[in-house]
């Protein structure tokens, strides 16, 4: 029991404290610690660290949900075409100039388009099982990325820079209101997923086994996919496209905490946040003159970790 308490509570919370301190303390500008209450840089850093935590945690949870529902460990929030939809929405908002009119236009469009695409995927694969849903998602994502490329090709030079940053992931200009909203939904989602963890386990075992366990497979598949999609869409709205977190974090956490969703929801949520704060810190430290976009950083870190794990497993 003591060992359990250490791995589930002490270790993640101390790791979180360490990365939060790292995230706040380092960067190109110095914080005025004598007068820290009014220091604008400290405030910016705090928002940024909080945003990294919410985004990382949401992505990791969304990945965990979609992997369980689609019964595929390579599924991630972006496999269902959610990112494709969100990026089309956001790109439209940028090229039409809506984001200058209303601050919530870009996140709003991103979420709306992500959910639209999800609706399409669900409609295409209705009642045909997990493989069909995965395939429909891949196809919808490809179509969406072609549309995105078209939008990029016809957009102004001014819009292009913003669009590119956003496509690479960007934790810098996070709206505080949007952040609070996303944080609130993250908490709600954590609670809901933990409460329905038994159902998530059942859904991961397929339709017949789920029925034997007293779980309506279709109903709960829809429930978990919608929660996962909103989690993923809100990260896209907050910080653009950040790949690999939804893949690597659930994968690692399952290794150490086991696959039973009754026991790995909380670790996935916390370690997802820690992972992204760490990546964000690295992106500022590695390349001091010009920051690496966070999406590039997660791909580099996550990708190399994944290849290492795959090789280790085979060997």
């Amino acid at each position, binding site marked *: 029991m003591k060992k359990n308490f250490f791995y589930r509570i002490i270790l993640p919370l101390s790791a979180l404290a360490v990365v939060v301190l790292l995230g706040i303390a380092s960067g190109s500008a110095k914080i005025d610690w004598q007068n820290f209450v009014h220091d604008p840089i400290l405030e910016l850093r705090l928002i940024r660290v909080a945003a990294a935590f919410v985004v990382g945690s949401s992505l990791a949870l969304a990945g965990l949900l979609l*992997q*369980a529902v689609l*019964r*595929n*460990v390579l599924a991630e929030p972006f496999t269902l075409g959610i990112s494709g939809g969100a990026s089309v929405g956001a790109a439209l908002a940028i090229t039409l100039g809506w984001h200058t009119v209303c601050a919530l236009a870009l996140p709003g469009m991103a979420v709306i388009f992500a959910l639209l695409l999800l609706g399409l995927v669900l409609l295409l694969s209705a009642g045909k099982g997990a493989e069909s849903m995965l395939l429909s998602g891949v196809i919808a994502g490809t179509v969406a990325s072609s549309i995105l490329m078209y939008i990029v090709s016809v957009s102004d030079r001014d819009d292009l820079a913003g669009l590119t940053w956003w496509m690479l992931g960007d934790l810098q200009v996070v709206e505080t209101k949007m952040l609070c909203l996303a944080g609130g939904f993250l908490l709600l989602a954590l609670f809901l997923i933990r*409460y329905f963890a*038994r159902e998530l*386990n*059942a859904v*991961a*075992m*397929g339709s*017949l*086994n789920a*029925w*034997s*366990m*007293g*779980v*309506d497979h279709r109903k709960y598949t829809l429930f978990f996919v919608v929660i996962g999609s909103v989690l993923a869409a809100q990260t896209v709205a907050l910080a653009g496209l950040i790949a690999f977190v939804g893949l690597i974090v659930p994968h690692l956490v*399952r290794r150490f905490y*086991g*696959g*039973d969703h*009754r026991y790995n929801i909380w670790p996935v949520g916390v370690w997802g946040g820690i992972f992204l704060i760490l990546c964000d810190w690295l992106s500022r430290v590695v390349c001091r003159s010009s920051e690496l976009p966070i999406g590039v950083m997660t791909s580099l870190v996550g990708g190399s970790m994944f290849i290492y794990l795959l090789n280790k497993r085979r060997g």
Partner: protein
Amino acid sequence: MLLRAENLTFAYKNSFMVKNINLSLAPGKLHYLAGPNGAGKSTILKLLCGYLHPASGKVLLDENDIANFSNSQRAEIMGTVWQDRTLDLDFSVREMVSIIASARFPRWGTAERKNEELIACKLSEFALLDKAKQPVSTLSGGEYQRLMLAGMAVLAPEILLLDEPTAALDPAWRNKVMKFLEEYALDHTVLIVTHDLELLGRAQGVLALLDDRGNFISGNAAELLNEKVLSSVYGTAATVEKTAGKNCRIYFDWDQ
């Protein structure tokens, strides 16, 4: 608990159908469901557990329509073991047992952890204790079937339906598993689907037979285990020899 099917009829969209299924199963002896490939045995199992809704007729659990049970009530009373093994997420063997039996445990808290001993006991009964921490994907087909049975032993449902539970087992394990099921059937209702003629020869409870023309018969195994009935159900000449005790030996002609 008594499991009864009354005039069940069900048709898929492609016009395949099962009709007039009448069945009454009680604790005491192990019950069998047999028939050629594609006759609809799995469909009947899916109807009996409420996964498929019959076009007409009903399934009764102690005189209560199964449709009136909530999902969680039903899951505590009735356990099913299916053949399909399509798990991509790696649960460990121990986790899998506790997940299969989770209808027994409350949603919150760690009551399931307090049943550690029970789970360990059932795992060792099916010789899986030394593999408890291994991912389920590393198990062989036979070990997987034992795992599912260990899960059912922890869940201990009143009614147990099994789709070919011994298909991947070696002869020694098949006999052990059958002993377990026969013992379990003394005070629970157990129905197994099987192609194994040696097992059919041991049948003493209800035997239900389904042929590929949609004819369904059920009755006492002692009456139905004869050459005429089996030849007509399987469409090939069967020989039935009485052996010592109540068992019999069944085989089909190789040259037909």
